[in-house]
Structure formats: structure tokens, C-alpha cells
């Protein structure tokens, strides 16, 4: 499928030595080399958070976290796929929060660890989307949910930050909680509400 003159590179993926064109992602490289891969594959566009990989680049002893479909292979790269992200132990139901005055109090009951952040930066380093995770947790802890939520716009819930956090904070869920309470309590669009009201009165109908 690829161009004849394309550069080939050698990589190790899940312990298998693979030679493939450098324009391929780590997942495509596995397929290219004839290895099956279906677990931890998903949207192939970097939004479903399934294809979590650990990467070590040539002449580096740093291991970084990334999404497999978004990572193009490079010479000497070592890649390991992780599967089945573990669920968090935090649970909550938005309906149990009676008003926006209560959100902060509830937050600390649902995510008691959020205050224990050691500022180790592990979550920031593990985030494949470059989100300022740690700052998001700090903002949420102070009750600044709208601001915290804004930081997590790109979050795909890959759970890397959860794995990286020594205090079990589940920062991605903190981020999503912040976003959800913002919508739940504060998104009240006038144009939508007035349309709902007109519909309720039965003033609009469809003729088929």
C-alpha cells in the first residue's frame, strides 16, 4: 500500500521485532507485520482512549505514555501495549447533589484524596494529551470547577493519570466531575428553555 521509496524503520512492539514504513502508527505497524491486534484498538483517531502504550525511544531511558494510534513509529522505538484500564473506585450520582451550593462539600466526600496531592507531577507527565492535570485537581479542590473542567477539554479518559497517581486521586474523573457539575448546574440556555416551554404548551406540532 505504501510508497516504494518510503523510509523503513525497526521497532520492537510487545517484544516483537518489526520493520515497517515510518508513516505507520504503532497499531498499523503491528498489522503491517502480520500480527493480530484487536484488544486496545478503538476509534483510531485518538479520542476513545483504548490504545494505551508505553514507549521508550532510542537512546533514552525515559518511558512515556501515549496513544498507540497517534504515535508514529521511529527507529529503535520500544512499545508495549497496555490493556483493560482498571475502573476507579469513586462513584457518585449527580442527582444526589441538591444544589450548586453543595458541590464543593460533596466533591470532597466523593474524591477525598484530591486534597492529598503531593505535586509529584506524575499525572502531567503521563497525559498523552498534554493536559495540566495536576493544576486541574488543585482547582477542583478549591471548588473552581468551571476552570478545572476547562483544562480537561481534550481528555479521552485513557486513565493514565489514574495509574500514575500515588494517592489514588483519579484525576481524570475529577476533571470529568468538574465538567459535569458545571453543565448540570449552570448550563441554562435561554433559547433552549423557551423552545421547551413552547413545546410544553403544545404550541408546536409537525404535520406529516
Amino acid at each position, binding site marked *: 500500500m505504501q510508497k516504494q521509496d518510503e523510509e523503513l524503520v525497526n521497532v520492537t512492539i510487545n517484544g516483537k521485532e518489526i520493520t515497517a514504513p515510518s508513516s505507520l502508527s504503532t497499531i498499523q505497524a503491528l498489522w503491517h507485520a502480520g500480527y493480530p491486534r484487536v484488544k486496545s484498538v478503538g476509534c483510531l483517531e485518538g479520542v476513545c482512549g483504548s490504545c494505551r502504550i508505553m514507549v521508550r525511544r532510542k537512546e533514552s531511558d525515559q518511558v512515556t505514555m501515549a496513544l498507540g494510534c497517534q504515535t508514529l513509529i521511529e527507529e529503535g522505538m520500544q512499545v508495549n501495549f497496555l490493556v483493560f484500564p482498571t475502573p476507579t473506585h469513586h462513584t457518585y450520582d449527580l442527582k444526589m447533589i441538591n444544589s450548586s451550593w453543595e458541590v464543593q462539600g460533596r466533591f470532597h466526600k466523593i474524591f477525598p484524596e484530591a486534597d492529598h496531592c503531593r505535586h509529584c507531577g506524575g499525572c502531567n507527565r503521563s497525559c498523552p494529551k498534554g493536559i495540566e492535570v495536576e493544576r486541574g485537581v488543585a482547582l477542583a479542590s478549591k471548588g473552581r470547577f468551571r476552570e478545572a473542567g476547562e483544562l480537561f477539554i481534550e481528555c479521552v479518559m485513557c486513565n493514565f493519570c489514574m495509574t500514575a497517581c500515588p494517592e489514588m486521586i483519579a484525576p481524570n474523573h475529577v476533571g470529568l466531575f468538574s465538567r459535569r457539575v458545571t453543565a448540570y448546574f449552570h448550563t441554562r440556555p435561554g*433559547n433552549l428553555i423557551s*423552545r421547551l416551554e413552547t413545546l410544553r404548551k403544545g404550541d408546536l406540532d409537525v404535520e406529516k
Partner: protein
Amino acid sequence: MSKNNQGTAYKEALNKYCALEDIAAAKETLTPEVLLKQFHPDYFPNSIINLKVGANKGEACHGQLAAMLQSDARIDESDLAGAPILETDILVIGGGGAGCAAALMAAEAGARVTLATKLRLGDSNTVMAEGGIQASIEQGDTPQMHFDDTIKAGHHFSDKELVAEMVMDAPEVIRWLIQQGMQFDLDKYGDLLTRRAGGTSAARVVYYRDYTGLEMMRVLREAVLNSNIEIIDYSPAVELLANESGHCAGAVLSSLKDCSYNLVRAKSVIVATGGIGRMHINQFPTSNHFGATADGLVLAYRLGAKLRDLDSFQYHPSGLSHPQHMAGHLITEGVRSAGAYMLNANGERFVDELKTRDHVSSAILRECVEGRGITTPDGAIGVWLDTPGLELREPGMLALRFPKLIELGKKSGIDPLKVPPLIYPTLHYQNGGVVIDPNGLSSVKGLYCVGEVSGGIHGKNRIMGNALLEIISFGRRAGEHAAANCHGVKHKKISIEHLSDLRRELTQANMPMDLQGPLLFPECAKFENDSDYDGLHKNR
């Protein structure tokens, strides 16, 4: 596909290209009907055949889909000996938007709900949606206009009853999503911002950046995870189960975790397995997620469900054509809605960019076939999406409203603010599907089908934003209805006996039976040669 490699070479065309503030509108020479007949892939010669078995016997269907619908099953009785049986009230198959909405409603109504999904919960077409979701909320707009636009865009093939229910649901659907914690882009007064979809008469698409699906899916997934819905992930359904009178009564799941079969016995089943993109109909690239392999259609058809519009697929105009390893990736229609033009190799606009998708895609295919396309060294072809021109007219808007496009630019090495992406139609959506009623019920008792797997709403062509609306509108309806009607249902016997009938019919019709379905995973994944997955034993 019928690409014609005559055109202008990429480098040469790019040298000629220049971002301009204004470019004259296109002059149409063909009527829409002629344009479609000559260039739309649905009319490719010899691609449509008649089905030989099943509820749609004698009716038209795309050949590739027909092969799957008339394939042999993956399992037989002997595979199920000793398989554990789980009990539940309602089994939802598919963890995208439609499945999650159905599961949440059913659980809220007090039913015991189990949700099985092929891979990770939320890995779906839903999470990838970009442009937004339709709801008539602006002053000059009405549900009637929404209805009329939908019917017209679908070339009058839609089920009017379903469309009427859906457009009336729309504002409530948005409210429900907000109450699940979903954010939308708002203006400074807090009103929902709207954009106009191609082929429609009003700005009616509400959205969150070009991450509408991501925002929707992560919120719905979180809501499901925080409920008492039992989740069985990494477990594709390989067959439905029926009771002694042919009612749907559960499913056979194949776990990718431990390679075993599990039976789920349920009072009713809601199939929400999404679309067909990864079948690469007519060899087109696709915008769809990895699991979009028409499984639900195959499962429902085997149980006797009636399908419709199996000859009609949507090719989205703006799929990425270059670089090749990203072929098919979507650039949302929102970009054209925001004012981006499309240009051929001569730098001319060649169609009104906001016509319906079938129309715009046909026009792109015409430019390519008639030598006005842009060709790349690796054999791809396409036209320009003039994002730099839009940046010139509205500086900063792309970065603000289309972060996913900017990311796409980084990965493809083509910065859309400076260089126009090369686009070509990408297989995007199955217009048809399982025939349903306003509660999402199929023609088989106990079997609901909702979301992309169902048919009837979009006729032969869908407008932007109506899919996300459909999945929540009908997902909720099915969940509620299934929960309200599961009391007192008791299946004496559950089995896959319907497969014997299927095999008999296939043999009588002289069908080859060398293919086994459902497909489950695209061929490129080489799933079938993997000894890890013996549990599915394709290689019998």
C-alpha cells in the same frame, strides 16, 4: 473505486494554490438527480444485488453487505455446551451513545440492565462525532422545518412517523444531555450556539467544539459506570438467542478476555451496535471506528428482522485523502458550515459547499473523474478544502472552534491554517438498517434496534447532526419501553435453533456458506489468524 488518476500533481497544484478572501460561487450545470446518478457510489454499476434468503428476500442490497447477511454463523450448539448463563431483564448490546442512553433509561426505570460491548465501553462512532447534534431551538426555526429538511434530504424515503417523533424529541434530548453533565458551546448570554448543516433551512446544529461526540460519550460512559448497570466489555455478541416462539431472549457473547462463550438470558434485547464503515463498501476509506462491521444487522436479520434501504450509504465529502496512512479520517462538515470552500485543481469552487452530503460528494467525485482533481504520488486523489481561505476571512476561528482539526493537522504534518487539506469522500454512515417502530422495536418480538443500526429516519441521505439526535432520542425510547414491558416475561427455553433454519435456507438457495458472520473486526486486524482468539473458532 473508480478513481481516475488524471489530474494535477499535488506539488504543482499546491504551488498554484493561493488563499483568497473571496472566490466566485460555482455554477451548476447538472440537475441534482443527474449528478447523483452519474457519480454517487450508490449507483456504481453491478454493486447492488437481490437478497436470496431472509425477511428481505428479493430486495436490493449492496453486494458486500449481502454476503455478510447471507453468511454462515460462527457458532453451533456444541460451542454452547456448558457455557455459563447470566440472567438479566434487559440486555443492551453496544456501548456507544445509543446503547448507553437506552441502558440509563432502562436502569432508571428500575430494570436490571446488562450492557455488553465489543471492546472498551465508549469505543464507538459516537465518541468520534464532531459537527454536532440537531435540535430546532432558534427563533426562526420550528420542528416542522426540521422535519421537512430531514424528509427532503432523505429524498422522501424516510419513515415520516419516526422523523416526526424525533424532531419533537430534540429539545428535550439536549436538556437530558445537559442533565447528564454534557457541555455545549454557548454565546456570551449563555444561549446555545448553532451552526447550519448542509441541505437545511436553518442553523440548528448545537455542538461542543468539534468534540461533540467525545464530550457526549465521556459523559454518558461516566453516567453508566456510576449506575448499577452491569457492564461486560471486550465481549462481542456473536449470535442472538430466541425462545420457543421466536422472541428474542438474549445473546451469545464471546469474551476476548478469557476466550469463552457466555449466554445472557434477557427478557428483551436492545441492539445498538452502530454502523458498517469498516466493511469498506465499494472499497472506500472510512471515517468509522474499528468495530463498525455491521454485526447488529447480521444478528437481527438471522432472527427474522426486516431491514430497509440496504443499497444506500453515506459518503462524507470531507475525508482526508492525503497522507495515505490517514485516508478516510474525517474533517467535520462544520468547517464548511463555518464558511470554508472546496476548490478543484484550478482553484475554482465547483459546488455549493452546503448542499446535502450525497450531492457534495458526487460533485467531488465528478471533479476527480473529469480530471480536475489533485493527485498524489501514492495514487490518492482529491480536492482542496480551503481552510487557509477561511482563516483569512475569520482569523482565529478554526483554532477556537475546531481543535480536533488542528490536532489532525499536527498528525498529518499539514497545518490547515496554512495548507489546504486534500479531501475525498469517505464511507461514513449506513443510511438504512433495521426497520423499527417509534419505540425502537423491530419486527421481531423482544428485539429493539436503536442508533445507526436502525433504518428509516434518514431515507437515502442523512443530514449532519441527525445521527446524534437519533441515537439519544430512540435510545431513550427503547430503554423506557423495554423496562416498562419486561414484567412477567418468562422464556422457557433459550436457544440458537434459528440457525438451523438459516443454514437450511442458505443451502436451499445454493449459497456458498464459506463466509462466517458477523464480521466483528476488520480484516486488517488479522483477528482470525490469532490463536488467542480460538474461542471464536472461525477456522473450523
